């Protein structure tokens, strides 16, 4: 058991100039065999490993990461957390995740800075207003704490918003989830890593999986840059890189890897206290505790593994936000970056068994995976442990594409993740 | 017909002030959208019979015969320019001559607004909304190019070195006009690649 973090441990360690802090996680050598192996130490993979160990007592497991843990989309997103989706199946997974976020710092003894500062989704056309009213009805009956707010309330919540009723896209109202918000992305990965490590999970970084080994219809192991590993259960959680890895097991995926970009401004004193999503104009904005405005854009319309996007999509986003929040015109962009997002045909994730026994896959989170990390790990661990889909995971099975049972949030609700 | 009331898309706009170039709407232009295959000899012959010209086959070029111009739009599409008065008659003549030859002729004289930009620095003004290499030799007089201009689709026609016509769909005419008012303001004038103030 690791020593706990607290204000007291901080004070104690300060006396000794912080020389005696334990490692947050070990750096073990890979063993030759594990009961289960998770490929990909992003948030979803780390959470899966943590819940496998914690809820299902599977502790002889490893999580393999080709680079550094949390270095993919977990550490590159705009950290929005909400659960106010339209479809029942989406509500179930995202609300499970959101509710786990509420107590995650305490659960992991690691401050992930979950900040339920409220998520405000602007309605800027009549059509959007209608769509959100529908979502509001559905969410209320599903038991979510969400409500429509008036333009006046929007102005109260975000005083810097452009409330000119004659502007190009006037604010007609907003859909508000007061318990949505943000968290510190790296801390979510690090907290789960530390938690999983404490439960005995081997987190092996700089270990690239080059192939999944099958015997007939079963998984028997993995080939890695650090040797072969035997295992009967493999959970693949490699986001944008899922297609190429699954292909080594002969499984073809309904995934395309696109570039999604985000940017931050220079830090300034607080001006926005909640998360604002303007779907009509594709702008997503919040302000980090450090003071940076964190802004998310759309995806580029072509496959891209370079983690470097094109400028037009961000340009469009920034232009929209300058119009929506005119004071940002004189603020400046500090840094922009891209991530490889895995998009499915219906823009909803895949949490699924596969046609290969012992091979499980969790991917397709596209542009909205961060908010789902705890819930995704929770139900995926359960799915792997029991070799059957967790009820919340069931609608997200791969079989839906052959059945036409799509979960198309963005089409149905006209809202990006 | 004289009692018919006709108005062009920018009829409500006044002559602009304070710009670095001249800007006005051209109101008397007839336009015919012509589809057919450049490889179809019968089609080319029939068109020539009516318009008196060989439709340009080279991308982004234009050809004139008298007061009729043919602008290349695609490998199977041209925009025929003539006077507005003549468009109806020319459309009918084309349809008649083309008969059963696979083609499509549509009088689109009212579909677009035509903006005339004129003056030293007109290319520089356009570069504020277009990513084309307008300073290169590719944009000599006679050149035609569809393009993305600001946030809209437009058709560019280089009439003379410093005279450009911009065609936009008429619903966007006000937007294009206002965009030009903003980017052609005299205090925002830019001169590119020429003698500069050496004090820098």
């Amino acid at each position, binding site marked *: 058991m690791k020593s706990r973090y607290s204000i007291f441990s901080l004070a104690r360690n300060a006396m000794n100039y912080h020389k005696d802090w334990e490692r947050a996680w070990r750096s073990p050598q890979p063993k030759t065999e594990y009961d289960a192996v998770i490929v990909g130490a992003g948030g979803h993979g780390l959470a899966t490993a943590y819940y496998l160990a914690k809820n299902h007592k599977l502790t002889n497991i490893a999580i393999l990461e080709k680079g550094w843990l949390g270095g993919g989309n977990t550490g590159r997103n705009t950290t929005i957390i909400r659960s106010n989706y339209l479809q029942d199946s989406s509500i179930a997974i995202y609300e499970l995740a959101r509710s786990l976020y509420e107590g995650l710092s305490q659960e992991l003894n690691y401050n992930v800075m979950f900040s339920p500062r409220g998520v405000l989704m602007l309605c800027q056309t009549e059509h959007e207003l209608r769509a959100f009213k529908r979502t509001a009805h559905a969410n209320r009956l599903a038991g979510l704490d969400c409500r429509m707010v008036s333009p006046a309330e929007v102005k109260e919540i975000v005083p810097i918003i452009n409330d000119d009723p004659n502007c190009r896209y006037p604010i007609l109202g907003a859909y508000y989830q007061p318990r949505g918000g943000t968290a510190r992305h790296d801390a979510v990965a690090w907290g789960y890593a530390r938690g999983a490590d404490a439960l005995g999970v081997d987190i092996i970084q700089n270990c690239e999986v080059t192939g999944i080994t099958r015997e007939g219809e079963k998984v028997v192991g993995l080939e890695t840059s650090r040797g072969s590993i035997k295992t009967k259960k493999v959970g693949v959680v490699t986001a944008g890189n899922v*297609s190429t890895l699954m292909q080594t097991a002969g499984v073809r995926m309904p995934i395309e890897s696109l570039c999604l970009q985000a940017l931050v401004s220079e830090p300034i004193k607080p001006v926005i206290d909640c998360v604002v999503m303007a779907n009509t104009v594709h702008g997503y904005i919040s302000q980090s505790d450090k003071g940076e405005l964190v802004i998310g854009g759309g995806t580029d319309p072509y496959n891209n593994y370079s983690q470097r996007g094109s400028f037009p999509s961000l340009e469009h986003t920034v232009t929209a936000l300058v119009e929506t929040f005119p004071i940002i015109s004189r603020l400046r962009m500090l840094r922009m970056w891209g991530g490889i997002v895995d998009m499915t045909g219906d823009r909803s994730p895949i949490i699924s068994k596969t046609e290969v026994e012992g091979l499980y896959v969790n991917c397709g989170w596209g542009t909205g995976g961060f908010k789902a990390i705890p819930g995704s790990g929770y139900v995926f661990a359960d799915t792997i442990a029991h070799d059957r889909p967790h009820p919340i995971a069931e609608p997200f099975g791969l079989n839906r594409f052959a059945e036409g049972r799509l979960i198309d949030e963005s089409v149905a609700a006209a809202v990006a993740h | 017909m004289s009692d018919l009331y006709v108005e062009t898309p920018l009829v409500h706009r006044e002559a602009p002030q304070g710009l670095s170039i001249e800007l006005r709407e051209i109101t008397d232009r007839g336009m015919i959208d012509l589809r057919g295959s450049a490889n179809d000899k019968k089609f080319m012959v029939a068109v020539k019979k009516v318009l008196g010209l060989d439709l340009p086959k080279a*991308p*982004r070029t234009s050809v004139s015969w008298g007061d009729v111009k043919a602008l290349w739009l695609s490998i199977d599409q041209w925009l025929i320019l003539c006077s507005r008065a003549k468009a109806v008659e020319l459309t009918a003549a084309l349809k008649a001559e083309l008969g059963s030859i696979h083609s499509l002729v549509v009088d689109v004289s009212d579909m677009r607004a035509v903006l005339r930009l004129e003056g030293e620095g007109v290319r520089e003004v356009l570069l504020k909304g277009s990513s084309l290499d307008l300073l290169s030799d590719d944009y000599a007089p006679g050149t035609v190019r*569809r393009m993305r201009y600001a946030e809209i689709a437009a058709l560019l026609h280089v009439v003379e070195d410093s005279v450009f016509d911009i065609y936009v769909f008429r619903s966007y005419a006000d937007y294009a006009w206002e965009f030009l008012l903003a980017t052609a303001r005299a205090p925002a004038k830019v001169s590119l690649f020429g003698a500069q103030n050496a004090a820098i």
Partner: protein
Amino acid sequence: MLLVHCPVCGAEGDETDFHGGGQAHIRRPATHNPAEVSDEAQRDYLFIRHNPRGLHFERWRCDRGCGKWFHAARDTVTMEFKAFYGITELPPRELMEAATGEWATYFKDKLKADAKS
């Protein structure tokens, strides 16, 4: 901002003058035999996509030019375009040979047929 070249009209311009149309060479099963399309074939057609890290083949449209669709071969890591070719054409032979993974499988038969003729 990619620089794209249209093989139909020769126009060259920013990616925003073009329209990316996703993976190339997808066969629509219903066009060929509408009576006999399995659920799996329909799924593959609609959803399963080649997603290579490296050489990829895709469709583009010359949106602000001649309006025509065409094919492009592009590296998804370096973003370099390797070739632009017609919408009814196969890629240049050397690129079919350079293809990897699912693309290599796809082009194998084409290359054989090509060798025969």
